[in-house]
């Protein structure tokens, strides 16, 4: 009986947008497409604001990875004397810093994005998912700057990267999907529970030490290697090292596949939770 009624209504609703309680919109993807320019504009705004004071903006993107690399090289390479997979230690660190800093920047920016744009959320309609998504672009630009730094470092060490570098976009894509998925989840949680933002710096900092950023994952004993790959960033970082350093770096398939599976699970979960809660953002924020 209900279904029949719905069908009749559908024919009446031709050309109308129907807003009803608890009903997920049919037009979600079409709407997202219609608002695609807002995505560009928000990214553009973030980039403009970030690099408006050009000197500070760019200097920050340069100084941070350089200092981190320096510290990790000294602590793990010189003092702890960990193996460097046949590459100069700074390059070993830098290849990992690239995806890690992208991930940590993207995650922090995305997670706080809804709160920092709350006036827009409470006053205008648009698909909310545009906000956390658009923050990725700034992190990508920082990634580009870091990549140039890596190229310079390689030139200094006269290190020739592997041809496998062509696979980097794939690993970067994995990092993007992971940071988006977690970003969706944390940004939505952040609207509901305001203390989530204190958790994010912790995740980022803790994550850096448990991920193979300052050292090679080859130092992890083989029997623990699969378990170690539960952290999806392990797969991404290992991938970057495999692609850039090349010779001497073996590719650990079981761990990588686990990383991919977990990344997609997290992304789906994050997206699902975001969609579930996004209609209440304006009431809660």
């Amino acid at each position, binding site marked *: 009986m209900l279904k029949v009624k719905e069908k009749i209504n559908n024919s009446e*609703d031709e*050309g*109308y*947008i*129907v*807003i*009803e*309680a*608890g009903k997920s919109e049919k037009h979600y993807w079409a709407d997202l497409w219609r*608002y695609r*320019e*807002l995505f*560009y*504009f*928000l990214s*553009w*705004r973030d980039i*403009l*604001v970030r690099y*408006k004071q050009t000197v500070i903006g760019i200097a920050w993107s340069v100084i941070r990875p350089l200092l981190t690399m320096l510290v990790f090289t000294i602590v793990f390479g010189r003092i702890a004397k960990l193996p460097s997979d046949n590459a100069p230690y700074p390059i070993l660190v830098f290849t990992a810093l690239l995806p890690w800093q992208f991930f940590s920047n993207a995650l922090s920016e995305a997670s706080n994005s809804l709160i920092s*744009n709350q*006036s*827009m*959320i*409470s*006053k*205008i*309609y*648009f698909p909310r998912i545009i906000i956390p998504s658009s923050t990725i672009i700034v992190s990508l630009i920082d990634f580009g700057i870091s990549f140039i730094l890596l190229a310079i470092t390689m030139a200094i060490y006269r290190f020739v990267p592997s041809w496998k570098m062509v696979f980097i976009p794939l690993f970067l894509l994995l990092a993007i999907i992971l940071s988006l998925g977690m970003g969706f989840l944390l940004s939505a*949680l952040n609207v*509901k*529970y*305001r*203390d*989530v933002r204190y*958790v994010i710096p912790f995740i980022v900092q803790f994550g850096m030490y448990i991920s193979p950023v300052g050292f090679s994952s080859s130092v992890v004993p083989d029997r623990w290697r699969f378990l170690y790959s539960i952290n999806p960033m392990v797969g991404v970082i290992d991938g970057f090292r495999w692609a850039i350093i090349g010779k001497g770096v073996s590719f650990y398939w079981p761990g990588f596949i686990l990383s991919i599976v977990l990344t997609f699970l997290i992304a789906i979960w994050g997206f699902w939770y975001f969609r579930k809660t996004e*209609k*209440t953002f*304006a*009431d809660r924020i």
Partner: protein
Amino acid sequence: MGIVIKVENLGKKYIISHQQERYTALRDVIANTTKKAVKKVIRKSETLPKKEEFWALRNIDFEVNEGDRIGIIGRNGAGKSTLLKLLSRITEPTSGRIKIKGRVASLLEVGTGFHQELTGKENIFLNGAILGMNKKEIQKKFDEIVEFSGIEKFLDTPLKRYSSGMYVRLAFAVAANIEPDILLVDEVLAVGDSEFQKKCLGKMDDISTKEGRTVVFVSHNMGAISKLCKTTMLLDNGKISDYGNTDNIIKIYLMKNLNSYEDKKKLYYGTLNSSLILSKIEINDRINKVIISPSEAININIYGENKVEIPGFGLTLSIFRDGIRLLTIHDLKKPENLPRCKFISIFKIPPFFLRPGEYSIAAGGYCDKSSDWLWGTDLLNFTISEEWDGSYESVNIGYVNLIHEGKRILLK
């Protein structure tokens, strides 16, 4: 002309929790869940923290035809903004449904998404995109927006250096040039100077009459509503109390808004509260629903009964508008002894002094020989109607009209 908005049985419920914190914190959730789990083991039942349901809107039904201009009026908290938020899909309804045809732009605030660090030009593009325009449309409209805002010189200046007036101009210029099929406007005209407000109202009129677009307009400004809208909806406590011809609805609203003094007896504070009773306030011999023409003098009589003699007593009356105290007057020039008696204090305000609008009265008294006092606010409301001499209208802006002398000397 087809129906572009159809609202059926619409309702929006909010849940107010009576907790002190404004935000839920994850740590509290974790702590409470643990507590409950522990309590469940020890004792079986536990009372949940009290939560109250509040229907901001309920059982709303209406239809809007293409090209209509609908006004929405009502007191604060009547549900006007909630209705606009539901129509513009910012929040989700709790019950009922809305059908909307065409592109909707909502203007609940001017300058949403403006960024202080960006220049005027950059903000035009950003704000345009937020309001749903694409780059081509913004570029096409760019010159018009700049001209409307009148800030050509400052296009490359960061917004943080703008004055608040310039900010509003720029924001409204962008908003006024979006071309939606349906435009939803909240109380955004309250900001900005009156000349600019007129320009905006004119623009909204054009959008509707010349371009045939639908406008839904929420305002407290009855003048703006009656100029712009043919049909008006009056919301009261989340329900549509009246719907129809704008002038009639405005009259109904103004009448409803005028309370009688009897309703508000208990609003007095002070040390004289038990001994001095102000039993009645009359404005031009009426005790409720007072509407006064600007050309009438206003006579306010306050009836009182005093039970204990007060040395050096003065009775005071204040008139408020929009929460601003316009003036305070006294029944006597100097406080005098008030014996045990019944009395009437009389106040006179000349004609053409208060400008059209809604006013409220506060009254009380004080003793200049001791610190005894009495004060009550929002005792009685009255309205000065809009029958002002037309020639004054465009130049006289403000709450009061002063009969004054001015002249001009031309220097060679």
